[in-house]
């Protein structure tokens, strides 16, 4: 983020209003060449609007978009060095797979040989080389997804935009496509920006995550930054299953309602402590808690605990005998290694 080079994509003060409603608050974002950037947020947070502004389908209300230092804010989608994989794919049903993939090159009046050769290359990249002559409606959802990807990649875009690219696929296929996307990103060394509401998908693919909420970018950083040091309560809550415990800071010392107190520099006032479930464990001199729920996930056990403050604390244990240790109704004492503290404002 603090590179001295011109970033590949630079959004400055970009915003969009539909009538009186602000879909995207003014935001700044810089994406470097080679980045795999995720725009992560719940539905309706403005992430698709942001992506469509970058692609050129929505004209921003204010701010500018620069690609390689060139202002493209007023250019139409056909004049931008970006290509997009649409959520519903938008494949042309009246054309074959090969004609779909070659569509953009044919528009550029490239020679037939070049179009067919590069189409073949693109289909090989997404492992559909045998499907060139098929019609679109004869493909499965996963195959259609790959055609959409090939059709965008063949244009050698400076930035590939993906709008919820895997949302329509079932879980297993989604994991396969995630691997595929990582492989392709690695192979062609391009710059990808994708929109998703699934934090595990964002973390699995991206090296840069922008978390959005209600049209505002709440945090931009690496996946581990976002996961381990969330900048706001929303990020903490949205990313992963964290527990938020209320407390009060007085002269550099935080006391939680649930009991524990610890040193934490900052302004006096109400705070929230963010506790990661995998950091919570049994502790003999810890906080008393009652097990209210325990769900077995195969690799781990997710335990809900009620604290004396009536707050819920989530614990995740991957020990082999976890199921025997935490049974609903059990009274035990727990502690956690560390926590993140966020100012919470009054109330």
């Amino acid at each position, binding site marked *: 983020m603090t590179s001295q080079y011109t970033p590949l994509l630079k959004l400055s003060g970009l915003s969009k209003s539909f009538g009186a409603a602000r879909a995207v608050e003014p935001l700044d974002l810089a994406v470097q060449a080679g980045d795999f950037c995720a725009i992560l947020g719940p539905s309706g947070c403005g992430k698709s609007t942001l992506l469509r502004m970058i692609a050129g389908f929505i004209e921003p209300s204010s701010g500018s978009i620069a690609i390689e230092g060139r202002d493209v804010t007023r250019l139409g989608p056909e004049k931008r060095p970006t290509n997009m994989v649409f959520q519903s*794919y938008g*494949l042309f049903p009246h054309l074959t797979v090969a004609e779909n993939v070659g569509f953009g090159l044919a528009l550029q009046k490239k020679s037939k040989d070049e179009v067919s050769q590069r189409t073949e290359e693109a289909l090989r990249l997404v492992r559909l080389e045998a499907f060139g002559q098929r019609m679109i409606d004869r493909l499965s959802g996963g195959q259609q997804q790959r055609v959409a990807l090939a059709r965008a990649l063949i244009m050698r875009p400076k930035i590939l935009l993906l709008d919820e690219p895997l949302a329509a696929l079932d879980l297993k296929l989604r994991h396969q496509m995630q691997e595929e996307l990582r492989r392709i990103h690695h192979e062609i060394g391009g710059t990808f920006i994708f929109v998703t509401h699934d934090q595990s998908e964002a973390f699995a693919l991206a090296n840069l995550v922008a978390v959005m909420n209600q049209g505002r970018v709440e945090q931009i950083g690496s996946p581990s930054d976002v996961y381990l040091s969330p900048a706001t309560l929303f990020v903490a809550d949205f990313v992963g299953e964290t527990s938020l415990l209320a407390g009060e800071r007085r002269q550099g010392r935080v006391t939680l309602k649930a009991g524990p107190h610890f040193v934490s520099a900052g302004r006096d006032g109400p705070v929230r402590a963010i506790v990661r479930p995998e950091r919570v464990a049994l502790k003999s001199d810890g906080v008393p808690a009652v097990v209210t729920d325990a769900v077995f996930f195969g690799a781990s056990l997710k335990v809900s605990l009620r604290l004396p403050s009536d707050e819920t604390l989530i614990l995740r244990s991957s020990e082999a005998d976890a199921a025997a240790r935490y049974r609903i109704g059990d009274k035990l004492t727990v502690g956690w290694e560390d926590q993140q503290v966020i100012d919470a404002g009054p109330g």
Partner: protein
Amino acid sequence: MIWRFVIAFFLLFMLGPILLVVLFSFGSNALIGFPMGGLTLDWYAKLAHDTGFHSAFWASFIVALATAILATITGTCAALALTKAAPKLVRSALAALSLPVLLPPLVVAIAIVVLFVRGLGLGLGLPVVILGHILVAQPFVILIVMARLARFDQATVDAARDLGASHWQAFRLVTLPQIASALIGAALVSAAISLDDFIIASFTIGGGNTISTFVWGKMRTTLDPSINAIATILLVLTVGLSALALRVSKYKG
């Protein structure tokens, strides 16, 4: 059991006259009645040599063709514009655009004469007939094309634009091929509507005839079975065009 007789009776009641017309067009008796005499194609042969019928046939052909092409173009433009408009506007616009379908053809015919001939000073003739037929056919085109656009994936147009197509290229290469069958269907329906019309044509044609005004003129002077032959030709044409339209546009219900 009794219901079958009732249904058979009504089918006979509704389709009987049409069947008789077709039947008599092949009968040798000149008086239109039973016994109809032997089978013959004389009445069709007579039409083939009737110059009045020739000119009426070509006038109808030109009017139907022009109506089909022009109504399809204007109706498609309207439908495309309506898909981009606010839903509230679409409802009232559709109601307004469909009005000519609900109005009695007589009123439409009078209105056309008043506007185009008295108001704008156009002379009576085929161009005014065509304008009138466009007015009546266009709502059908709009409804057919809008039905097709309702299940049209807008992302395909966005994708084309994203891949470097201008607005016009995206329309020509992506939108048009996808809705082409609906447009052909709409054109065929327009042609059938045009062939079918008598009132507007008789009010606005001035001199000359279309097939329908030709038949009307003939009915007033002679009642010979060549009228049955014309009716049969018209029947085949309009039913055939409509059936083709339904087939091409894959219209379901």
